């Protein structure tokens, strides 16, 4: 642990030891880290805005992604929810188009946009699963799971073996593939590929898992398995999921955020709350209109 002065200044304690909050003495930092270990990892977004060129695509979003729970981001197409979620692990920086982001995203108290934070390390803590399953097609199932480990450090064979089994277990894929770990990742069905991608993300031991419409390219049975998996994973991870499927949100999410873009095509957070409240008694009439299917 760093000394108090360093912890207080907030400089130098950035990402190498992410658990330490910026404003704390060493003792408080230790306490906070312990608390995090018990309660899970939290993301706090303050006034986040994102631009495509000069076009403001997402404006002033304040939201909390609560620890050890699933937060669903819903809304009609073009409301900025996918753009927003890419800002939570700085993937927007390698996405063509989005070129400016303002605001704060605090991961366990530390701003991932602080000037001395390495975006590569942010993505190690905040994993992501994409809409279309994208396993590395020329790699085996085994190599897919440990791809991130192999490309960032050189783990021992025994470590990799253990990681593969643990992550495939967690992704509910182990029983289906344990006898063909050397088979190509591309040989799996779409749903299996998506769970392989989840296992691959888990292998990096992320604190938060972002999912961008993870089931929208899958059939209902595969979708059901992914949803089951999300519920299972939230015991250990903090999950944010973008979905355009409201039934899915109501099934898996503890909290739901409704995004909407107006005439000017700027996405804003309209309403956020516990899923049960938002779906049964929405406070905003636009939310009510959307969830009852009157538009979108």
């Amino acid at each position: 642990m760093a000394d108090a002065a360093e912890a207080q200044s907030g400089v130098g304690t950035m990402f190498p030891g992410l658990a330490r909050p910026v404003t704390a003495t060493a003792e408080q930092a230790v306490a906070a880290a312990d608390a995090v270990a018990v309660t899970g990892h939290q993301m706090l977004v303050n006034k986040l805005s994102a631009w495509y060129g000069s076009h403001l695509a997402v404006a002033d979003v304040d939201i909390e992604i609560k620890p050890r729970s699933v937060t669903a981001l819903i809304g009609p197409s073009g409301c900025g929810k996918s753009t927003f979620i890419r800002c939570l692990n700085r993937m927007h920086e390698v996405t063509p188009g989005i070129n400016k982001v303002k605001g704060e995203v605090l991961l366990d108290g530390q701003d991932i946009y602080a000037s001395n934070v390495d975006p590569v390390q942010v993505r190690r803590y905040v994993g992501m699963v994409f809409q279309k399953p994208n396993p590395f097609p020329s790699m085996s199932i085994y190599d897919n799971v440990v791809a991130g480990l192999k490309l960032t450090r050189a783990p021992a064979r025994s470590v990799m073996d253990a990681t593969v089994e643990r992550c495939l277990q967690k992704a509910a894929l182990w029983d289906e593939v344990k006898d063909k770990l050397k088979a190509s990742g591309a040989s799996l069905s779409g749903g299996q590929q998506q769970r392989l991608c989840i296992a691959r993300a888990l292998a990096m031991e992320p604190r938060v898992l972002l999912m961008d419409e993870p089931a929208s390219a899958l059939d209902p049975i595969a979708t059901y398995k992914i949803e089951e998996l999300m519920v299972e994973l939230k015991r250990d991870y903090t999950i944010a999921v973008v979905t355009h499927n409201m039934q899915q949100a109501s099934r898996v999410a503890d909290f739901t955020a409704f995004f909407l873009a107006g005439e000017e095509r700027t996405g804003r957070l309209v309403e956020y709350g516990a899923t049960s409240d938002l779906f049964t008694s929405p406070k905003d009439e636009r939310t009510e209109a959307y969830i009852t299917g009157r538009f979108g």
Partner: protein
Amino acid sequence: MAAGTVAPGASAPAGGSPGPTQLLFAPDARYTRRRAYSTFMRGLVSAAALLGVAVLWIILAYVIIRGLPALNLPFFTQRPLPYGQVGGGVGPALVGSLILMAVSAVIGVPVGVGAGIYLSEYGRGRFADAIRFSSDLIAGMPSIVIGVFIWAWLVRTVIGNFSGLAGAIALAVIMVPIILRTVEEVLRLVPHTLREAALALGVPQWRVILGIVLPAARAGIITGVVLSLARAGGETAPLLLTALGNQFFSFNLLQPMAALPVQIYNYAVAPYEDWHTKAWGGALVLISLIGALSVIARYATRGNRLG
């Protein structure tokens, strides 16, 4: 056409629609004419296509007929004899060509692949456009001009004499734009979702390029390198002014070095029948060498599987 028209032979339904005399698809003179014209034009373009590639087979057949008699073991192993003597071979030229190609690959492949990576992965804006445009210009530049430049720069000043190294550098200049554009194109074919998948795991970009993007495009990169080697291996003009040629076996890069195209030229311009046959033999060897490289390139692409 009238509504309710039916196939010939069908009885007219009650209600007075036109009788079976009016056919839906009547024989049409215009259609017959058009079909004949189409057949004729198709024959014409097929002939053009045939003529285009027939040249290849004619050249190949002629080179084989004229060159085959020259081929025997001494032809491959012996050095050219002094002017006017019967016998000798292309040994030094064969060795020299292989050395020149290897050295030019050592120089040209890293530059070409590196520049291709830059253009595909980082190249945005005017600087990248300028590089693309310049590389196209170099690719289109007559190779003798490249030879003259290397002669003026390296042979005359820096190295001080004709040398294999100068020849290899001239060939590398010819190879770089070919490799660069091929590599840029095949890297662009690697789906963005693959890069995204790796980046989202917290893999630094340079590791994504080395560990994911380049392996995915491996076959295409090999193809580009091999094709550029084939092109460089056949160049004559820049070598006349740089590597010069050599009657003897030489492995010294700082001395003049023999090369097959140059040796073919020297044999061909001599006034002896025996030497002319050797020129044909040399041409056959060169064509086979380049043909083999093209086959390798094809083979590498055959298993092409992105990702």
